[in-house]
């Protein structure tokens, strides 16, 4: 049975001061100014915005706090920040800069109790566990450091574990499909969705409305993240939403 409305999220990956976009999270190209893009998507009616510091793990810190502070002065919808958050202190700074939720991957794998501590302090609704998945034939492996480092962890098992640890949402990125605009990894999406009971945000591969409809044929996606097709103006938010709505999905118009 399908009841849930699907949230449409704009994903903005940032390197230094620029919005960047690559393929498989690599070969990053500059595509714009993060605050300007956030403002544009907000005005177009996007449901949420996700800022990811694409190179934070390399430097061991998140550099987005001032961008979040600026964006939050004019963008009045939920904002999630991720990338390079290493400690409760980092998370505290992220939330104080105006973010509603934080997303953690690398450090959650190194130190799973960080999820629990963050959920206890700020509530599960503020803690998004980010999982970067690469297909390994019959299974998916969780990666860290923006798809660079393998961990040996099975994505489906890790998804169950992050829910148990207290994450309120899961951001699932298919590294294989990311930036390809060829559609979601449907098998991965279905397996993770069915393994957990918290909402899952699906990211990586969305190139056209049909890709979301293919996902919605299998599961009831709680949320879908878009990057390339928004940044390159292939679709506007309203056009995207209208397409999905017309095809029978429950979307906020």
């Amino acid at each position, binding site marked *: 049975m399908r009841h*849930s409305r699907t949230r449409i999220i704009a994903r903005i990956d940032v390197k230094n001061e620029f919005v960047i976009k690559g393929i498989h999270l690599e070969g990053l190209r500059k595509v714009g100014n993060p605050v300007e893009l956030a403002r544009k998507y907000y005005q177009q009616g996007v449901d949420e915005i996700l800022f990811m510091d694409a190179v934070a793990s390399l430097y061991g810190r998140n550099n987005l706090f001032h961008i979040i502070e600026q964006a939050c002065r004019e963008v*009045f919808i939920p904002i999630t920040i991720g990338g390079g958050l290493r400690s409760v202190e980092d998370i505290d700074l992220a939330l104080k800069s105006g973010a509603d939720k934080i997303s953690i991957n690398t450090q959650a794998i190194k130190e799973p109790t960080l999820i629990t501590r963050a959920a206890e302090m700020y509530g599960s609704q503020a803690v998004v566990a980010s999982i970067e998945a690469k297909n390994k034939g019959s299974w998916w492996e969780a990666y860290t450091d923006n798809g660079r480092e393998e961990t040996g962890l099975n994505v489906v098992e890790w998804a169950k574990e992050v829910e148990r640890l207290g994450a309120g949402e899961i951001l699932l990125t298919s590294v294989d499909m990311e930036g390809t605009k060829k559609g979601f990894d449907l098998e991965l999406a279905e397996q993770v969705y069915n393994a957990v009971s918290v909402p899952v945000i699906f990211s990586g591969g969305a190139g056209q409305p049909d890709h979301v409809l293919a996902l919605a044929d299998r599961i009831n996606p709680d949320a879908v993240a878009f990057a390339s097709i928004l940044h390159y103006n292939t679709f506007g938010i309203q056009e995207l939403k209208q397409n999905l709505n017309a095809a029978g999905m429950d979307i906020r118009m």
Partner: protein
Amino acid sequence: MKTIAVLDYGIGNVRSQLNALEAVGARGILTNNHDEILGADAVILPGVGAFRHGMENLEKHNLISVIHEYIRTGKPFLGICLGMQLLFEESDEFGHSKGLGLVAGKIQKLPLPADGGLRLPHIGWKEIDEFENGGWADSILETTKPHSAFYFVHSYAAVPASSDTWLAKATFGEHTFCCAVKQGNIFGTQFHPEKSGESGLQIIKKFTEI
């Protein structure tokens, strides 16, 4: 310019509350100072997360008696999300916890349908409607168009003891729940007006003008 005190008890995205107040032309101050609270033109109790944690933090910051004292001044008070839930007498979350007891009723978990088609927490945008026709006059929702959508993040919702305090309703699957309350100078919204775009800012603006 009106001064709105946003209660500082270590909980909630207060930066967004202050930004929203600034956007509608009010001055927001983050405070737990009793004189500043009692002297403000209006007070907002923000909050996300667990009910008991919220009450414990209000106690820790010595805010409970001053909230009651402020309410008696008759000036407007707005509880948002957990801040609305704390207005009630009690909650079932993690056993049983007592709330501020300003509004009669309790907080209960949203019911999940047996077919597994819904998930908690309930996260996302949902339309709200009048509980009774015309009920939004003289309230923070006076300028809100019925069936506008607002952003929700919650697993629990208020069950007011009296329908007189129900201001607005929304649905979770087939279940209708109370998403805004009004009792005299006390208002509460389960959704986040500060995170609900222009429609949300309109509510904050209306609140600062009451």
